[in-house]
Structures are given as C-alpha cells and as structure tokens.
C-alpha cells in the first residue's frame, strides 16, 4: 500500500478513520492487559487522556475556525497511546496536561493532522517525563512500589524472564506484556496497516548493537541478557505502534530501513548510557526529526533521470 511509485496510482477505500480504528483495535489486547494487571485506575488514566486529547482538538479547531477533524479518530488514538505510555500511579491531572500538550503544541500548532513532525503522544510523554520526573518514574507492580526491570538490570540484577515476557512487572500501562503487543502487531501487519520494515530494522539493529557492545566489552555475547532487554520497557511497543506512525516515518522502503536502524541504535545508546534507564521515546522522537533528511536522500528516481542529478537537487 505504501510503495511509492510513478503514476498511475491505485486508489482504494482506505481513509484515515479506518487506519486509526485498526490501530485502536490492535491496541485493545495491551489495553485490556493493562487494566487487568494494574487495576481500574489504569482505565481512568486512559479515559482522561483520551477525553483531554479529543476535547483539546475540538476546542482548538473551533476557536481557530478550522475544519473539525475529531471524527477521524486520530486524537482518540493519540490519547490512547499517551495513556499506555504512562505509569499507572501518576496523578490524574497528568494525562490531561499531556493530552493538551500533545494535541495543541505538537500537532495543531504545526498544522494539524499530517503536518506534525513528531509523534504527538511520544512528544507529550517526553514533556511529562522532563517536567514531572518524580511522578513519571514511580512505578508499581503487584500493588507495591517497585523498580522497572530496566532499572534492576542497570543495577546488575537479573529479573525473571517469564515474568517479564508475560508482563507482570512494573512499567507503563501498555508496554509490559509481550504476547499482547505481538498480537496487536500481528493484526496490524495482516491488515497491512503497518509494514514490518520499520519494526524489524529497529529491533534487528538494537540486537546487533547490544551484541557488538557485549562482544567488545566482555568478549562474549550474553543472549539471555539481550532477550531480557528486548522484553523490557517500551521497545516492542514503541517499535510496532509508535515508530510506524505514518506522519512521522519515511515513505520509501530504503528510508524505513535507515529510520529503523537509527531508532534501534539510539535505543541501545540511551539504555547503555549512565543517566537514563529507558530511552525508547527519546530515540523515536530524535529519529522523527531526521525523517525529512532521510526522505530527501532516499527519494526514488523517476525513470529516465540521472541519479546523480537528483541527489544534487535534493541536497
């Protein structure tokens, strides 16, 4: 569906609303698991976040006299993604602030749907993480306060692989359970809503980066550790649901590979660095910012034009 080619272009009946609905459907398993595991409070967080996003989109577009695009579900999806990226015990006003930031500052000020240069949900998450770092890094698991697996791993511990795979650990609402994420991702791939290129190149380059790092620093590659790193934090969730956002990812296959590799490598760098335990959201928004450059360098050449000239023209 997203193969960029010369005319004639084939049209089909796919509209924004259907795409957004498909992603929402794919997020249902993770959402249900989050509500089941973290309790009813997770549902409140999700509801507040969605209401805040939809309302701010509606009010902003009304005030500015633009066409109201609430019914295309994109604000709904932003709210859902934002909530799934929050820890469950944040104060209830925090998702509301995040929703307003995501929609008004990241999306509408840049021109609304299709014009934002960053993923709104992730930009809002980073905004909240920087602004309210204490609230955003307090995690709970099994009803008591606990550190996320990534923090434990940084401290040298080795969490239980089965618990981490099943998602019964501390973390954000939607990111802990691997089977649920993969189920949603499979749905999206089968429905051809997302292409597997971005997630695969992202995860692949992350695994490669960690293996090379392991090999260079310890002489051996610790497979178990890398699997733990893959299951931990928002890596899979980010790779399948956040990085594949249409607006903020490249359109060509080559561009997608470059984009995925950039995300995977940045996640590796951020996770190995001293300060941050988790860096998926930063990695994805950093890569979002180089997307225009990637697109320029990987633009396909029309038949009959010299490759070199195109390069020069684009740069």
């Amino acid at each position: 569906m997203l193969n960029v080619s010369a005319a004639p272009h084939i049209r089909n009946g796919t509209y924004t609303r259907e795409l957004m609905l498909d992603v929402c459907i794919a997020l249902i398993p993770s959402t249900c698991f989050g509500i089941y595991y973290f309790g009813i409070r997770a549902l409140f967080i999700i509801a507040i976040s969605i209401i805040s996003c939809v309302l701010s989109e509606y009010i902003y577009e009304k005030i500015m006299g633009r066409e109201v695009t609430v019914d295309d579900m994109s604000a709904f999806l932003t709210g859902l993604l934002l909530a799934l990226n929050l820890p469950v015990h944040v104060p209830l006003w925090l998702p509301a602030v995040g929703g307003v930031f995501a929609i008004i500052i990241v999306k509408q000020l840049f021109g609304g749907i299709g014009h934002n240069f960053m993923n709104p949900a992730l930009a809002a998450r980073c905004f909240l993480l920087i602004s309210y770092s204490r609230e955003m890094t307090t995690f709970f698991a099994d009803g008591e306060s606990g550190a996320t697996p990534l923090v434990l791993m940084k401290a040298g511990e080795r969490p239980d692989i089965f618990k981490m795979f099943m998602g019964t650990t501390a973390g954000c609402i939607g990111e802990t359970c691997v089977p649920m994420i993969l189920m949603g991702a499979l749905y999206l791939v089968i429905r051809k809503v997302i292409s597997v290129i971005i997630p695969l190149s992202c995860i692949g380059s992350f695994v490669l980066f960690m293996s090379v790092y392991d090999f260079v620093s310890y002489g051996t590659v610790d497979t178990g550790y890398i699997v733990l790193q893959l299951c931990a934090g928002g890596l899979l969730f980010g790779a399948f649901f956040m990085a594949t956002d249409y607006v903020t990812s490249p359109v060509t296959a080559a561009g997608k590979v470059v984009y995925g590799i950039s995300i995977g490598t940045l996640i590796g760098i951020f996770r190995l660095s001293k300060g941050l335990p988790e860096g998926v959201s930063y990695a994805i928004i950093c890569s979002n910012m180089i997307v225009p450059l990637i697109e320029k360098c990987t633009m396909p050449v029309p038949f009959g034009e010299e490759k070199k000239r195109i390069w020069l023209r684009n740069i």
Partner: protein
Amino acid sequence: MNRYTERLYNGIIRQNPTFVLMLGMCPTLAVTTSAANGVMMGISTTAVLVMSNILISAFRKIIPKNIRIPAYIVIISASVSVVQMLLMAYRPDIYSSLGVYIPLIVVNCIILGRADAYASSNGILISMFDGFGMGAGFTIGLTSIGIFRELLGNGTIFGWNFNEYFLKGQYTPAAIFVMAPGAFFVLAFLCAARKNKGCGGNCMNCSERR
C-alpha cells in the same frame, strides 16, 4: 509624538528587539530562568546600549567608514567592561548568577545593530533615546519571559511564592519551563501574542515593515 518619544515607542513596541526583531536570542533564551535574572540582564544591556550609542554617535564623524565595525566593537567592549566591573564591585551576587552572559553582551546583535543602523548616522541625544528605547524593549521582553518561566517552572514570581499564597501549593511546577525547551515555548507564545494583534498575515504590505 515628538521624535524622542517616537524612539522609545519604536524600541518598546514597534521594533521590540526580542519579540519583533528577534535579536539577542542567546541571552534571551539562556538567562531568563527567573524574572530577576531577566531584569538584571536587561538593565545591564540597556546601560551598555546607551553608553555605546552615545559614544558611537559622538565619534561618528571621526570613525572611517571602512573600519567602522572594529571601531564599534572596541567602544562596545569598553562599555561592557565598565558594566562588568561595576557589577563585580557592587552586586557580586548578580554578577555570579549572570555569569558569562555579561561579557557576552559585547557580541549581542542588538548593540552592534543599533550602532550601525542608528547611532552611526544620528545625533547624540536621539541616539541615547534610541538606546533607552531598545534597552527598555529588551528588558521588558526578558522580564516577561522570565516571569512566565519562573511561574510555570517554579511556582514563584521574583522569588515570591505565588503557588504557596494563591494556590495553596496545589500547582506542581513543570520543571521543563526552567530548562532550555521551556524558553523556546514561552518565547514562541509571547511572540505569537505580540504578533497576533491586528496582524492579518499579510507580510508584504505590513505597516510595521520598514
């Protein structure tokens, strides 16, 4: 409006260096973490601006056209040194909180800009008023950015705890506003608020265009 008050109006409203000319962005973004810092930075810059405008206007017939920029820089850095030494002697606390941004006034575009665009071709008194107007505009810009950043990022205004008195500590300060990204957010919103008044987006026929 006579020509002296016109200079003040021009500096504060019409060609406000922070919100309209977008000059001196480095101190604007860096030191405005609190309102007090903004005021002090603005006053120091105003002092340098007035001094250098007077001197450059006085020497405008002597300075050769071809080497005017180095000559201006010498005059500006002399004024900055005066301000720096005064601050060091009488207000060491402010000097240490503004740090490297005091000596950096030398390379502030507003000062060189006013020297080349205005003081080099106008009389001493009106150049002084121009310096006052531009300096006041810069001070107002920095102070308003500082007030918003301090209020949102720390819950205080000029060190006075607004949050505690009026909101009973209910507001959780968003730390991002005292960090670098907050400066850009606040600056952008204030520019938009300044621009929005009576601006139809018709830039080619703008009455503020000179």
